[in-house]
């Protein structure tokens, strides 16, 4: 029973993540993100990939994502704080982050990355800072959700192994 409950809880969380609408202050940004949930269909596919053969797949992917993202974000803020900004390097980092967020289905992070890249192309430091801020926000928001989800996953996993 508890397992079902946990699973329900998890599904509820995921559903909420799909539908959680970005509450942006910026009107321009609002235009882009207003109808978007935290996650997109890619996460569906990830969920579909997880089965009995690879029980910890989601968890693993999310952990990887978080590690990568935090590292990248750290690098980004480090590079941006320097007096002379190397935009090509920054662009490469953002590209990485965008790729991983796309893979996970964290579409708000992905979109924020796209904003960042645009600012990067224009060599617009202000824009970069703004976009980085946005990525940070988005990332931490989704991380907290992911953390809850992983906890639930783990409990589900624990339960299911115990009952077997």
């Amino acid at each position: 029973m508890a397992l079902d409950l946990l699973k329900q809880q998890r599904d509820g969380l995921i559903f909420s993540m799909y539908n959680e609408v970005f509450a942006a202050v910026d009107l321009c940004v609002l235009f882009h993100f207003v109808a978007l949930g935290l996650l997109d269909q890619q996460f569906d596919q990830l969920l579909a990939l997880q089965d009995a053969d690879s029980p910890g797949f989601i968890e693993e992917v999310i952990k990887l994502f978080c590690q990568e993202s935090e590292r990248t974000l750290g690098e980004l803020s480090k590079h941006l704080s320097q007096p002379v900004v190397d935009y090509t390097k920054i662009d490469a980092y953002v590209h990485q982050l965008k790729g991983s967020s796309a893979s996970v289905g964290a579409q708000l992070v992905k979109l924020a990355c796209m904003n960042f890249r645009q600012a990067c192309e224009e060599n617009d430091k202000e824009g970069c800072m703004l976009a980085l801020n946005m990525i940070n926000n988005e990332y931490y928001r989704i991380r907290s959700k992911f953390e809850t989800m992983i906890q639930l996953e783990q409990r589900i996993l624990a339960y299911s192994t115990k009952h077997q």
Partner: protein
Amino acid sequence: MSPSRAVDYCQEAMDLEGEKLEKKHGWLMGSLETEDQCLVQDDQSLDKFEIPSLPDEETSGKDMFRTQDSKLGSCEGLLASFMNGCWYAVVGLTVCWKIFNFQEKVGINLKWKQDQEQPQSLQQVQKQQLQPQGSRSGKWRKKLLILFLVMGVAGSFWLFWFMNKNTVLWRKETLDNMCDERARMLQDQFNVSMNHVHALAILVSTFHHGKNPSAIDQKTFAEYTERTAFERPLTSGVAYALKVLHSEREHFEKEHGWVIKKMGTEDQSMVRDYTPEELDPSPVKEEYAPVIFCQETVSHIVSIDMMSGKEDHENILRARATGKGVLTSPFKLLKSNHLGVVLTYAIYNTELPQDATSQQRIDATEGYLGASYDFPLLVEKLLHQLASKQTIVVNVFDTTNQSAPISMYGPIVTDTDLLHISNLDFGDPLRKHEMHCRFKQKSPPPWTAIMSSIGVLVITLLLAHIFHAAINRIAKVEDDFRWMMELKVRAEAADVAKSQFLATVSHEIRTPMNGVLGMLQMLMDTDLDANQLDYAETAHASGKDLISLINQVLDQAKIESGSLELEAVQFDPRVVLDNVLSLFSGKSHDKGIELAVYISDRVPEMVIGDAVRFRQIITNLVGNSVKFTEEGHIFVSVHVGDEVMNTQGTDDDNLNKRRGLVKNGLGPPYNTLSGFPVVDRRKSWEKFKLASSGSVVYDHEQIRLLMTVEDTGVGIPRDAQSRIFMPFMQADSSTSRTYGGTGIGLSISKCLVRMMDGEIGFVSEPGIGTTFSFTVAFTKGQTSSFDTKRYQIESAISEFQGLRGLVVDAISVRAEVARYHLCRLGISVDTANNLKSAWSHIQNCCATSATTRLDMVLIDHDGWDGETTLALPQLLKELRQSEKDIVSKKWPKIFLLATSRSNGLDKFKSAGLVDDVIMKPLRLSMLVTCFQQALTGGTKKQQDRRKPSFLQDLLRGRHILVVDDNVVNRRVAAGALKKYGAKVTCVESGKDSLAMLRPPHDFDACFMDLQMPEMDGFEATRQIRCMESELNNQIELGEVSDTSSSNVKHWHVPILAMTADVVQARHEKCIQCGMDGYVSKPFEEDQLYRAVMQFFES
């Protein structure tokens, strides 16, 4: 004036002229050269300008010469040629002005063109350059004008001076000439007269002194002199005085009988009447010279002693001393009271040698011959003989005493400007005489000079004014031009900005609208009551309309900004049309309109072009038709251009022929889809270029399709027909109120059609309907390419292959449409135009044999006349009945074709009269499902489940290398591939992938990320391909004996790019680098399947 002087003048004038012209030329050429530097190199025009002008100058110079030669002393010729020269100069100036105006224009044109060609960034620079250049040229033009003005004014002053000088000179010359002439004549005449007097002296000497007794007495002398007076016209009289010494006086007086008298010298001037008797006898002197002979005119002086007169005395003394004729200074002559001179000759008794001394001469003197000249008379006479005596005043002076010249003739001197003095030589060296000549009038003002110089001045001023106006005009035009350029740039910028704004705004609106629509959709899915649902649905529909409008505006903006690019993908026009029709099927059902598509057999199955835009055009047109049609039909047909063109000439329309296939008298009034009249659609494509052979080279590949959309709607009002392709322009402002819409669709369609190298046209009849036609050029495609959807349909088609059907329809066109759709499924079709014939046909088929049996009968529900419509259920019942009678045979399935869901169609089905009701419009997919259900009893889901398992089949057990620097991506890709049963190895950089894929290896495929640090996907692939080809070469040469590679003959690991963006260029680059395909990242099952299938299918 002598000819040589005249020539000199002329030469001088010409030189000056030439110099002036040269100066001007220099200036012009200079100006042209400067022009050249900044503008065009127009050598030719320069030459053209120069060559004719220079000879002109020469000839004008020659002309001047000739004129001068022929008209000596006249200034007219010179003036004329000078004016000619002026005119040449003016003409030359005008010509070069024209030329450089033209060049200016050319320059501006060029500049303008350059501006056009140059990109915008350069244009800014150009604009900046344009400004100073323009003002600079304007400045030097002004300077030139001022220079020209100054030169013109100076020229006119010079002309005045020059001409005036000439006039004065000429006047002086004239005066000189006249004066000299007069002086010479006077002198000549005087000399002649003197000679005569001399001759007379010799006569006296010969006949008076040479003879003894004297041959001459007073009487003879008087007579002789009187008779020879004509020879001495100037003398008033001659007299002969004898030299008488005092010692001989008495003897002499006695001899002649009178005493020697003395001249009344004391009061010479006062005594007028001269009577010798009143004169006193001469006082005692050393010698006397009493007149013994005299002419009759001066007979009063006989016996007067000439020595007693002061003048005469001197004269006599000088005469006998020199032996020549001598003159007295002028004095009042006796009696006549005129000023006159007396000429005295001495007569000697012996022949004297030439160099005799004066004493010898005095001693030898016998007597004296005197002749008095009446000077005024003399000069008067002389002047009478000469022309133009009125114009000049002549004065003659005796200037022997320089300080006090004695006037001998002429009025009292009036001081006029010009004076010419000629010396007179009357043969007496001691006496000097001068002739002074003056003009009577003062010289008139030099009118010609004034007039011509004023003329030149005026011309100069006029020209200057014209040039000034022209310069101003040029400046103004240049300003205007700059202003226009600026406006143009601004307008272009505004246009771009507008397009950008539209694009941006449309995009920005679209995104939230999607949100709104999504939310509304979700809202509708929730539990709503009827009212709320209605509201939500309305909102949703409006939102959808808004989105489509925005899309259209976006399209328009894109087309206007030229950023819309057409794709070239392979597609099936039939599928596209099916899709479009299914879009409108709902609406057509609601309205009860018949909607049908017919595609000619000659239209290829696959064409290459922009399917999306093609679909958009058709959607636009069909959408319009649906909007404006309340009843009747909308018929979309597609033909190959050639097909229609071939029939056009002969007026034997293939379509109509087909339409009329099964027609008989019983049918509806019009053989159209719904029986409603339609416009003649051929008119809509009358002007099209239908032949697909637009370019001969691609003749076999290119195909031109002609699409027509025919409706029976309200039609377009005639006055609005001309402007319906204009954006945001609807036929009528009331249209938008009645039917909604923006009217942008047709404009976009037109643009798209033009982009597809096609044409669009229409014909419309208010109240009858409208037919739009358009052509597009596509490339023929290959039918063999793989498409899952197609595969699905084709498998269905194979199911129905060989079946037979019967279409029962009163309207043959509609039957033809149904037949076309069935033919697509491989069903062979017969048509019948009423139920009776159909019935007999069915029975025939059933009766004859199993090979020709009917599998299905499609009966159209609409379009029958009233009787038949009512009878339809009954007939169907009968049909069913008979079916049951013949159980042994398999009976055809009966389908009813219906336009709208109405009046109990389901009743037929529920009553078992028909197997199914098919809603029109007919579409392939719909027919397939329908037939599948009816014929095989529903194998619907079979297709869908097949694919994933298929992918799993493909990938199971395969060893796949995933190359991606992003760990998350790597993990996800691996996870996905693992799920399909593949064995996955991951590496995180291009270099690692090289190591892994160095043959021999056991990977079946490689998924490669493109953007990686150090070595990106392209480079890695290139290197892998390199390694492979090396090894392949070695294998071919048999150099490799590695056991692991012995079973592999040719190394080529499939490499698929993983990419997030779907830009075509990116894909092409992938292929160039040796990749075999690409999958989008994150994986989409369908795409992954397609990509992988190429390699693992075997």
